[in-house]
């Protein structure tokens, strides 16, 4: 407290500070507190800088003092100035960033440029996105996300011109900034040669794209390699389509493109994407493809049905899985049925459960049967629990039946309204299951604890 004592004694001897000099008094007092060894005392000064000491003049004076403090205080002061949000501190922050050799101070300065800096800091911050130090990269990312709005244009230019690694790092930032004006450039990036850049661009497009962008997104399906990458593109387009609030309109931009197109291969490539969006208008188009005599179009139509987002295509899939002449198609359709059979649509829970029973009967192996038992959890009805009961005592299905039971029991409205049956079932789960997490969950649900949902493989509480 030596600095403080000296300063205050001086102020008191001089007849105490007058109103006119109150601001200087604040700065002097804050400065003396910042020189204290005790970090809690320094904390009071930081709090004063953040919330109380007002005005640009105070900001400038404090920022000018930055180089005079030791690194620990510099870090605190940078954070306080950043929270203060007065851009008048920016020149001093830049200067400290340029001159300091302390990495922690540099990181703090980069962080401070987010709220305090502007377009002038863009190059430096973008350059830091690929720094070796992950703390520098994180700080740069945070600052670019917070940089004032007029910096977005500069970021879009950087997205066009920077090296691949930088472009990939810029994409989540533009997403966080909700920079929809960047979508055309992001679509270009989604067609780039580098896979990581393409993946980052698709993730950004799923967040930023809207219905008008679908026309420009469709060619990406054709450019992407079949398999996982094409699925990513399809999912991105489906995510953008779902942004339409009216379900029936969601498939229209894709249908519009399909109807314009006269190349069967392109149509076949686009159909699975249409399937991911679904809807009655899409179903009509897909039905025509399934009925096609052309193998390519038929396969694409079936794939579209296999991608369907709800249970409305179950009867079609059942028919194909039973009657299609191609064994591969039957197999793929059956796999889709396992996923889609319990999904919601116009069918009531009883009919959905009947479909699950039907699919179970069609299974060719116990692994498939266990998949069906797993998917049954999507039908949150007491009848599903009753359906599971006979499986507990069958060694090949008992463990899955137990897991599905606790999944159903997790939903308190279902569990509490059928309490007796669930209590009895959970007792059996505790006897049959060999998974400590499932046993623990059963115990929790018996006592009404549904706020935590551990997964198998998590450490049990006993461990």
């Amino acid at each position, binding site marked *: 407290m030596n600095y403080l004592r000296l300063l*205050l004694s001086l102020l008191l001897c001089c007849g105490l500070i007058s109103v006119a000099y109150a601001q200087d008094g604040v700065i002097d*007092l804050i400065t003396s507190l910042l020189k204290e060894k005790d970090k809690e005392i320094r904390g*009071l000064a930081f709090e004063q800088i953040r919330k109380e000491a007002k005005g640009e003049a105070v900001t400038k004076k404090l920022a000018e003092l930055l180089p005079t403090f030791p690194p620990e205080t510099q870090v605190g002061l940078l954070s306080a100035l950043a929270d203060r949000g007065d851009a008048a501190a920016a020149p001093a922050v830049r200067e400290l960033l340029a001159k300091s050799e302390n990495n922690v101070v540099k990181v703090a300065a980069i962080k401070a440029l987010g709220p305090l800096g502007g377009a002038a800091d863009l190059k430096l911050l973008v350059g830091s996105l690929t720094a070796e130090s992950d703390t520098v990269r994180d700080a740069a990312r945070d600052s670019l996300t917070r940089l004032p709005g007029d910096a977005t244009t500069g970021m879009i230019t950087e997205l066009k011109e920077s090296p691949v690694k930088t472009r990939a790092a810029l994409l989540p930032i533009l997403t966080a900034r909700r920079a929809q004006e960047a979508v055309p450039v992001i679509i270009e990036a989604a067609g780039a040669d580098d896979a990581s850049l393409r993946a980052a661009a698709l993730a950004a497009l799923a967040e930023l794209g809207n219905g008008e962008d679908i026309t420009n997104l469709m060619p990406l399906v054709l450019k992407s390699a079949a398999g996982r990458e094409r699925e990513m593109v399809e999912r991105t387009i489906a995510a953008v389509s779902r942004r339409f609030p009216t379900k029936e309109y969601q498939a229209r931009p894709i249908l519009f493109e399909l109807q314009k197109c006269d190349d069967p291969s392109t149509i076949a490539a686009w159909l699975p994407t249409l399937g991911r969006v679904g809807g009655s208008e899409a179903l009509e188009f897909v039905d025509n493809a399934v009925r096609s005599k052309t193998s390519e179009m038929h396969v694409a139509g079936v794939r579209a049905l296999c991608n369907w987002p709800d249970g409305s295509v179950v009867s079609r899939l059942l028919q194909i899985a039973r009657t299609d002449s191609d064994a591969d198609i039957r197999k793929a359709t059956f796999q889709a049925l396992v996923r889609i059979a319990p999904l919601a649509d116009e069918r009531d829970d009883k009919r959905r459960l009947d479909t699950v029973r039907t699919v179970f009967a069609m299974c060719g192996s116990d692994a498939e049967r266990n998949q069906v038992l797993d998917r049954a959890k999507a039908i949150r009805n007491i009848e599903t629990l009753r359906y599971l009961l006979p499986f507990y005592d069958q060694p090949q299905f008992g463990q899955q039946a137990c897991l599905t039971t606790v999944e159903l029991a997790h939903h308190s409205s279902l569990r509490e309204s059928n309490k007796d049956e669930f209590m009895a079932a959970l007792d059996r789960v505790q006897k049959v299951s060999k998974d400590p997490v499932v046993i623990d969950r059963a115990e929790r649900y018996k006592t009404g604890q549904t706020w935590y949902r551990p997964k198998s493989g998590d450490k049990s509480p006993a461990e």
Partner: protein
Amino acid sequence: MLDQAFEALKKFDWGQEVKTVAAIDEAVIATHGDAAKRKDLEAKLTAALQTECPLDAKQYICRKLMVIGTAACVPALAALLSDKQLAHMARFALERNTAPEASAALRDSLPKLSGAQKAGAIASLGGRKDAASVPELIKLLGDGDAVVARAAAYALGVIRSPEAAKGLAEAKPSADVKPAVTDASLACAESLLAAGKNNDAKAIYMGLATGADTAKHVKLAATRGMLACAEKK
């Protein structure tokens, strides 16, 4: 009905039906705005307080006098300040009595009281923000009984006048009493700052912040106060 209620008071205890004295409660309400009737009711209650009625009845009367009491009932209440069982209820009535005689009675009682009763009277003077008691309270900061000295410090912290602040700053309290003096000093400084007396407040804060043996939390509070003083124009 009222006479019957006063008659019932002679055997009153909190376990019985309260309706036996309900007429007194109703009279307290009914006499609002009628000075003559209030005076008459106060006189009856004061007279009853001075009889040999049960302890519960006296407590009941003190509660009623807390609502309607004037200077007239002060002597009867003051007489109870040394009574271990009734001092608390007597102060309950005196502390809220708007007559200056109530303060005087509390001040006058101090030399005659000790221990918890004295600390209680001091607290009531603080509760009344009685500036006239400040010199006596400052003297009591050095009382040999730490309970009394602490009560004096807290009372000065409630009164919060510049004189109280000065007395606290100059006090040389024992270790037992020092935290109470510090607390009261901070309260005084806060009040002075709110009243625009920044320099007075700052002097207190600085004294606390720079004291060699001041506890950390006090230093932090005082430093925060200094910043508030510097910030306030």
